[in-house]
């Protein structure tokens, strides 16, 4: 560095006041950087992004973290949190540092249509709001009411992406077969806001969250089943701050309990070698590891193998933190490593339980042309096929 940079304590205060309360706890040991999946891939982003350094710049009030490849690289996978000796809330720091520029109107260009669509349509996929519940056509799902126990909240991705709609339909069928009392409010819901909050657009997050909380509270919702671990995170960890308190489960947790209670069982044999990719937001962020495995092992014929990196050490698909809408060149996509992990285990099917993971892994599998040896499936789809 040959130029002298301006140190601005004011900037540091601004970052901290945006929510980076633990920024100053960081002692710069660098463990986080070492664990970060960006170390596993080459390329420009990997070279630019160093989470320890990014936080250092924030601590000192130094410019230089605003570059898109730095500020928007983190996939919020939570790997770094596991070993931080100072228990720094690294992801909160990332989100807050993003907020400093996003709140001023500067979202990276590729994310502007996402925010725009969230504002206009209540979902990030440019889908018309009135089409949110279209995937339910032909299914017989009651509206949530006093007579239903759970609200089934379906992730925007599974409402609008035809590929992902299969997940929602499978979950509905599984829950119905298991006799779960649930209803939907899909047509009136908005995006949970988890990801846009991680991207630093706090204002937009609050707008979305408040509309959902108003809807849920108005309808007397107490218990929610989510199809995506990201919605699970938002409802469990973000909504209470805004007065939304619910008992929230991911569908895998609920099905796991129902399996134990004997309320659901699988009969169609599936003689395949199956492995599981732990979604960061189900695993590390919500500590759900066992139900998925028990469910998969309950399918007759399934030979279950663990991936090398599993559970707490699972490798991110790169879909979190807004990266599901970000470009990384071939060879720099974490999903490719994940596909290779599964192929190395000679698995026939790579199962996961998150619509973002499905998008990223499907894409990586097609990109690596591994479709003939490995199939990527959402857990609900596999379980549904074996009912």
């Amino acid at each position, binding site marked *: 560095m040959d130029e002298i940079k301006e140190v601005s304590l004011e900037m540091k205060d601004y970052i901290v006041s945006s929510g980076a309360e633990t920024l100053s706890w960081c002692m710069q040991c660098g463990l986080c950087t070492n664990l970060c999946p960006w170390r596993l891939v080459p390329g420009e982003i990997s070279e630019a992004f160093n989470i320890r350094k990014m936080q250092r710049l924030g601590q000192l009030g130094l410019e230089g973290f605003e570059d898109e490849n730095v500020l928007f690289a983190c996939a919020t996978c939570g790997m770094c949190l596991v070993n931080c000796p100072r228990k720094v809330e690294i992801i909160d720091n990332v989100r807050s540092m993003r907020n400093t520029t996003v709140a001023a109107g500067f979202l990276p260009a*590729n994310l502007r249509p996402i925010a725009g669509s969230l504002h206009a349509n209540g979902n990030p996929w*440019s889908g018309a709001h009135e089409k949110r519940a279209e995937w339910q056509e032909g299914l017989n799902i009651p509206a949530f009411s006093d007579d239903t126990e759970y609200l089934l909240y379906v992730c925007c991705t599974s409402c609008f992406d*035809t590929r992902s709609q299969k997940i929602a339909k499978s979950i509905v069928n599984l829950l119905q077969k298991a006799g779960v009392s649930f209803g939907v409010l899909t047509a009136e819901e908005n995006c949970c806001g988890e990801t846009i909050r991680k991207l630093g657009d706090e204002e937009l997050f609050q707008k979305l969250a408040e509309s959902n909380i108003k809807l849920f509270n108005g309808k007397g919702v107490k218990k929610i089943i989510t199809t995506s671990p990201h919605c699970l995170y938002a409802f469990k960890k973000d909504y209470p701050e805004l007065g939304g308190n619910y008992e929230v489960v991911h569908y895998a947790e609920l099905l796991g309990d129902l399996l134990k209670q004997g309320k659901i069982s699988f009969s169609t044999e599936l003689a395949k070698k199956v492995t599981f990719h732990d979604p960061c937001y189900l695993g590390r962020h919500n500590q759900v590891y066992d139900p998925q495995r028990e469910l998969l092992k309950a399918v007759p014929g399934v030979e279950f193998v663990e991936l090398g990196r599993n559970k707490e050490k699972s490798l991110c698909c790169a879909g979190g933190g807004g990266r599901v809408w970000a470009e990384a*060149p*071939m060879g720099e996509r974490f999903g490719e490593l994940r596909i290779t992990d599964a192929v190395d285990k000679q698995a026939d099917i790579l199962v996961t339980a998150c619509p973002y993971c499905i998008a990223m892994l499907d894409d990586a599998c097609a990109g690596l042309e591994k479709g003939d040896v490995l199939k990527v499936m959402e857990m609900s789809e596999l379980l549904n096929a074996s009912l």
Partner: protein
Amino acid sequence: MAKGIWVVVEQRDLQIRKVSLELLSQGRKIADETGESLVAVILGQGIEGLAQTVSANGADKVILVEDEKLAEYTTGAYTSVLNKLIRKEEPQVVLTGNTAVGKDLFPRLAQRLGVGLASDCTGIEVDSSSFMVFKRPIYAGKAFEFVSSTVRPILATIRPNTFALGTPDAGRTAEVVKETADIDAGDLRAILKEVAIAASKRPELTEANIIVSGGRGMKGPENYVILEALADVIGAAVGASRAAVDAGWKEQKFQVGQTGKTVSPTLYIACGISGAIQHLAGMGSSKFIVAINKDPEANIFNVADYGIVGDLFDVVPILTEEFKKIVG
């Protein structure tokens, strides 16, 4: 009393632009309906021969303004000449195409005349009180406004392809009037140094009116020539899905979609593209979507206005030939 419907005819290298002929054809209809005369105004050098073409296309009268300073379009010189002509002759309406020239010339002319301007119109309705009401798309076509002028003359630029070409009648003759160019010195401050016409420069993706896009179904980089041939016939840009970019067949700058370019052309032709949500996010707001895909279940058909289930390698070359017949 203001009278006459004027069409400012755009010519480049003594070739009359198609939109000018479209306007003459529509102008003829309006003139007949309203009992006005249709006047074609041509500026340039060596333009005398064009008088016959415009009269065959419907003009009752042709005003020619010849000058070497008008050989190439410049904002100032053209404004200077038209301003004086219009003040002298007082037409009701002055129309031209919403082209690079129209977009640059008419706002300036309108301001000098102290009148309004309906720009980029896609429809004209004859109206008893305001004479003409113009329909124009706003918010990138997500809405339309209808505008009329409270003063005369009424100025409007009309989007190309809004009106059909008429059949020229070589037997028609028109009164031809020659006017001299009186250009104010103050209007010659911007100097045109050079005009570079690119032989077949394809438009930039995000600015293109028509986009022809190829995906994994293209099978290899060498096959893009058939899409390029199609594109060049209709002045389209060529795009790609991310799968085609990942495969190294096209550069990233041609990628359409959520992490590529967001486009909303009038026409998007998707060839061998399955229609993944990330692709749709980048082109779903196109006005018309055509899908050519051999898989009848492909998601792209859910958003397509026109779909052909078939092999693109069979369909695209024939389509190119058909397009040639249409655009001439």
